[in-house]
Every structure is written in C-alpha cells, then in structure tokens.
C-alpha cells in the first residue's frame, strides 16, 4: 500500500516549505514557476523544508520550530544560489543551479515517501514549554477559571478596545517564515479578534539583500536600459508574489514568468497581463482605502511616495533621463490601491524607457532611484524606511487588510538591518 502510494505520489509536485534568506528573491520566483515544485504556505502541507539564501550568523530564527511542524515524512534541503554553505552536512546540501535543486527536491521527496530515506526526527526536544502535567485539581496545569497554564500555555488577558468591549488580546509573533508576509519579516503583534492593536518590528531573520546593480550605479554611470529593465523586473516579481498572497497564484505565476528574461520587446505581452490584473477588480475589492500614508513621511520612497502624489524621483535630476523626456507617473490616493497602480504604471514606463534609451548611461553621482526608492551613499536603503511605516499603518486593521498593506508597500525586511549597521549597504 505504502509503495503504491509512493509511486503514485511521484507524479505530484513536491510540496516544499521555503525558509528563504537574503538574496533569494529571484531564485524563489524562479522556483515558483517550476511545475515539479509547489511552494506551500504552511509547514503542515509540506514534505521538504528548503533552506536557501543568507542568514545572520548563528542559528536561523524559527527554523527548528518550522522543521518540526512539517508532518512526517519530512526532509531538509539546503541550497544557496550564490554558492555552497559550509556549516551544513553534505547529505542535506545541494550545489548547483535551479535545475539541480528541483531534481534534488524530487529525489529526496521520493526517497522519504517510499521509505528508502528515513524521515528526519524532530530537532527540538520533546519537552513541554511549561511544566503542566499533573498540576492543579484536574492535572491539566490550570488554576481557577482563567489562571495557570492549562496544557502548557496561559489564556489571553483582556485589553481595552476602540468599540468599548474589553475582550481578550492575543500577543503573537508572526513570521519570519509566514507565507503571507515577505520572507524574513518578523512582527510582534497584538490582536483583538481579527484586528491588530499593536505592532512591533523585530530584527529580520535574513541578511540584507544587496541591490548590487543599484549600489554600483552610485559610483559609476550605468546603462539606462539595464537599470530600467531591472526596475521593471523587480516590480513584476513583486506583483507576482503579491498576487499569490491575494489568492491569484496562477496570474502571479504569469507575471513571474514575464520577469524571466524580460526585454523591452515584451511590452505588448506585459500590457496584456497588467490589464488582466486590473480586470480582477483587485483595486476595488481588496485594496481601495487601505493603508493611506501621510505624504510627508514617505519622501524618497519611490513608488510609495509617487503614489501619494509626490513628484519624488531621482531620475528627474539626471541629465540622461531629462534628455529622454522622463516625467514620473504619480497617483494621488496614497492608499494600497494607488501603490499597486503606481508600480503597474511604472512597469510599462520602465520598459518604454529601456526601449528608447539605446546605450545611454545615467547616475553615478551618489544618488540612484532604485525600485523601492532613493538609494544614497549613506547606506540606508528605502526598505528600512518602509518597514518603519508598518506599526502606524497596520494598527487598527483586520489581519487580511494588514497583509495587503504590507505587500502594497513592497517592504524589504532587511531594511532594518541596513539601518542598524549602516556599513551593510554601502559596503
């Protein structure tokens, strides 16, 4: 029976739960396009735990916990697009490109399913979080009505709320490996019902994703066509991931596919896909009126600023762009819907610029307009500032709305790291 099932199961995409560190944005996008791999949102649905990318030194936050949540049979694979990691046992490591990775994922999944490879035991010890067995009158660790730690955890306490009903407030750390949030973003939130009452930003669990091409443009002039294609690609990958979180995974895959090998000649196809995104009604159904920012707080934040009506764009000051007749697109709503509209408009604009730029070069004098906003040589990346917006914007939102706002800001969780260690970005 087990063999038969294992043989049948080989035909299905391998459910993989990714723990994606820094520098894996593009790799993750490519992986989502692979028909033999299915990146899932919760470890409970996975077989393989895929650890990829760069992490801060020391233990990877939350990795052991996520590993143990994967139901048996489970297996871990480590892969680093840039090169092999040394601290990982050889047996769990995959070197090589995407194709090698996909082959390895299918192979190990087949092996644990058929039983030729043993399922990995849990990493964390089999110990209760709090001693509770046998304590109290019923032996369940509780005390009275709401006291004690029944079955190992306390019950939530009440807290005031905006509608005058003082009900229980759950404080919980979400992320860093929650499929609904960008990988590595870890938030300490307090929820009452489904509404967020307080947000605290934790240090990111991933290392900085250095936008190398853009950082280089700080020093030397770079071809405009290259920069603009990169910008369009960045936004398309963002769109693909955001569409997935909004439960339009197939359309998301389509935009991710467009991002692969994008050329200015793809403009027609890009416009068709973007029109399809608009036709889903996502602005009106899911985004309108959410997370409106104060224009005075978003200076330098690129699309976020321009969606709030600011004509804030380093390209305006660059002679090459002036020569190309560049005018920034902008929207006035400042909300999530306008941020989507803004990026979608910038995709076609960038393709247009890339097509017309020829071999002109731009920038190189210490300021660059990156896809997330203004990059300067002081080392603070725009992602850092975007993360700072979250506590204020998310407070008072329903959980799903909060997720929509996080994605609409194109938050880079590693921004926090770039701020705490300024040399991180400028290096």
């Amino acid at each position, binding site marked *: 029976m*087990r063999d*038969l*099932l*294992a043989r*049948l*199961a*080989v*035909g*299905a995409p391998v*459910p993989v739960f990714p723990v994606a560190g820094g520098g894996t944005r593009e790799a993750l996008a490519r992986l989502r396009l692979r*028909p033999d791999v299915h990146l899932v*949102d*919760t470890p*409970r*649905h996975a*077989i393989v735990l895929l650890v990829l990318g760069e992490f801060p030194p020391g233990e990877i936050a939350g990795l052991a916990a996520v590993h143990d*949540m994967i*139901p*048996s*049979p489970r297996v871990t694979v480590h892969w680093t697009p840039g090169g092999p990691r040394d601290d990982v046992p050889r047996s769990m490591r995959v070197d090589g490109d995407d194709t090698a990775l996909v082959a390895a994922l299918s192979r190990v999944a087949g092996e644990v*399913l058929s039983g030729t490879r043993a399922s990995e035991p849990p990493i964390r010890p089999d110990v209760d979080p709090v001693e509770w067995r046998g304590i109290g009158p019923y032996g369940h660790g509780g005390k009275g009505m709401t006291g004690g730690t*029944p*079955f*190992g*955890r306390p019950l939530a306490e009440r807290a005031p709320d905006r509608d005058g009903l003082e009900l229980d407030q*759950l404080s*919980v750390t979400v992320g860093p490996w*929650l*499929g*609904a949030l960008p990988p590595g973003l870890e938030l300490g939130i307090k*929820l009452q*019902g*489904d509404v967020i009452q307080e947000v605290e930003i934790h240090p990111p669990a991933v290392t900085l994703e250095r936008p190398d091409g853009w950082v280089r443009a700080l020093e030397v002039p770079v071809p405009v066509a290259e920069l603009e294609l990169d910008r369009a690609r960045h936004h398309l990958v963002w769109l693909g991931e955001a569409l*997935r*979180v*909004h*439960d*339009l*995974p*197939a*359309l*998301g*895959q*389509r935009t991710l*596919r467009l991002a692969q090998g994008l050329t200015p000649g793809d403009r027609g196809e890009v416009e068709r896909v973007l029109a*399809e995104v608009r*036709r*889903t*009604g*996502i602005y009106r*159904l*899911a985004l309108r009126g*959410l997370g409106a920012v104060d224009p005075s707080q978003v200076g330098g934040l690129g699309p976020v600023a321009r969606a709030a009506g600011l004509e804030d764009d380093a390209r305006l000051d660059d002679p090459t762009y002036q020569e190309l007749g560049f005018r920034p697109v902008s929207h006035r709503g400042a909300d999530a819907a306008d941020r989507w509209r803004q990026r979608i408009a910038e995709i076609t604009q960038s393709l247009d610029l890339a097509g017309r730029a020829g071999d002109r070069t731009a920038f190189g004098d210490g300021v660059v307009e990156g896809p997330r906003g203004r990059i300067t040589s002081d080392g603070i990346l725009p992602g850092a500032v975007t993360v700072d917006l979250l506590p204020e914007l998310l407070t008072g939102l*329903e*959980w*799903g*709305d909060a*997720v*929509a706002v996080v994605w609409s800001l194109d938050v880079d969780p590693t921004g926090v790291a770039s701020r705490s260690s300024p040399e991180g970005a400028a290096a």
Partner: protein
Amino acid sequence: MSPAWAVALVGVLLMVSVYLVAVMETIFGLRVSGVRGYGRAWALPMSRAALLLSQRRSVTERPDAQAWALAPALLGGLGAVALTAIPLAAGVEVADVDAGIVLFGAALVQVMVAVFLHGWAANSLFPVLGAFRMAALALSVSIPFSLVVITTALPAESLSVGLIISSQESLWNVVRQPLGLPIYLITGLGFSFWAPLQLPDARDLSGGTSAEVSGAALLVWRVARASILVAVAAMGAAAFLGGYLGPWLPGWLWMAVKTFGLLAILVWSGHRIARPRMETAVKLGWTVLLPLALVDVFVSGALTL
C-alpha cells in the same frame, strides 16, 4: 430510489465530479499562468491524493479532537445531502421531496457549522481567524442565496426541485429571472468557500482553517469542499438552466453538461477575480446582493403573475 442505489449513485457522481473539479482547477490554473499543454492535469489529482495519504496527520497541542474529526465528515455529508435534493434526469432522483429547496438550503447553511468547527478545533491562531471569517461570510451570503432559490419556486408553485425543473419547460429561469443566476453563483461560491470567496481558507491566513491540517485529514477536507461546489453547480443547473430538459440529447447528459458548464464558470472565476476584503464581502452581501435578490423576487414575481 432505494437507499442502496442512492448511496451508489451519489457516491459515484460525487467522486467523478470532485475529480473533474480538481482537473479543471489545474487546467484553468495552467491556462491563466500562461502554460500550454494540459495532459498532465488528468493524473495530477490522483498523485496529489496519494501524496497526502502518505503524510502523517498533524495534531496541535490541545485541539478539540472530536470536532476536528467531525468537521470534514460533516462537510462531505452535507455535500452529498445537498446533491440528493436534485433530480439528475427525468425520474432519477434520490429525494425529490416537497420541500426540496429547503432541504438543499438547510444542507448548505450547515456548511457554516462544519467550517467553523474545522477552524475552531485546531486551537491555533490562523485557523481560528478562518473560522470566524466563515461565520461572517456565510451569514452575509445566506439570505440572498435563499431568496434567489425561492424565486425559482414562484413559477413552479412548489418547493420541489423536480417541479421547479418542469416549470422551465417553456422558458429557463435564467431568462425569466436574469438576476437570479449571478447572485446564486456568487453566494454559492461563498458557501463552498471557493476562490474568489475562499476567505476562511485564504493564503493571507496561511491556509486558514486548514493551516494546521495535513495528510489524510487535508485530503478529505479538500474533497468535501469540492463536493459542496459540485452540489451548488448541480442545483444551479436544475433551478436556473432547466436541469435535464433539453432537445436531442438524453436528459442526464444535459444535466451533466449544464452542471459542468457552471462548475467551469465557478472554477474559472477563482483565477480571474480577486478575493475581496472581509469587510467588502460583508458589505457586498448585505448592501448589494440582498437588495438585488429582493428586486429579483418581486420583479420576477410580478412578471410571473
């Protein structure tokens, strides 16, 4: 129909159509994502089922184990019950009772209970959020849903689905009551919590009520959920598209064509329409669908007289 035959009929029909829903879901997904070549889609659901059966079922720290076991069973049972209310061809009916649409409505409204239990039982943040989402969603869509189904009973002068079908001999209800079918399909998506209204099991909740479910339990949950969608489509075909009525082809074939046509529309819309916010969904139900459903009742009623 004797109970044994009823079980065989409904069982086979549900298994076949749930499988086809899974195939359709794959094909539409591939199509929208821009991939051509769907040969693989036909065997894929089988492989996925085998994979889930090879996984261990997950349990959280302190779940409501009985409720967690009951939820998918209840959901699947309700899908099957809803299907029994619908005649599938002239004379082929399990329970074409006088109060047929009440039976169907009762089965669908109980879906809310199954999904709520499924999310609540896990004692984990995201499933619990999903459970409460289902309650809000189902409460918002259930009144317009019942209203448009009742409207189809007006010309039939009966609550029996068989008589509702035969009252469409001259004209299908989809023409007679143009508002009915769209409202029915939207609210039906809500009850089967299928995309774009899969709020209780949405990705922003990491899978919502099924976020902590794995293995065989996840398999039966997905099958049960698809069975609700099948029942919704079958009832849509019977109440609005004349069921098994139609020229040239045999009745059962007409019923199958219409049901799968509606299933295709429902599954397609999941890939093409965005998931609304919770608040938008609630407002949509009460301030758009409900008034439109009332207009549908009274205008169609006046025209029937």
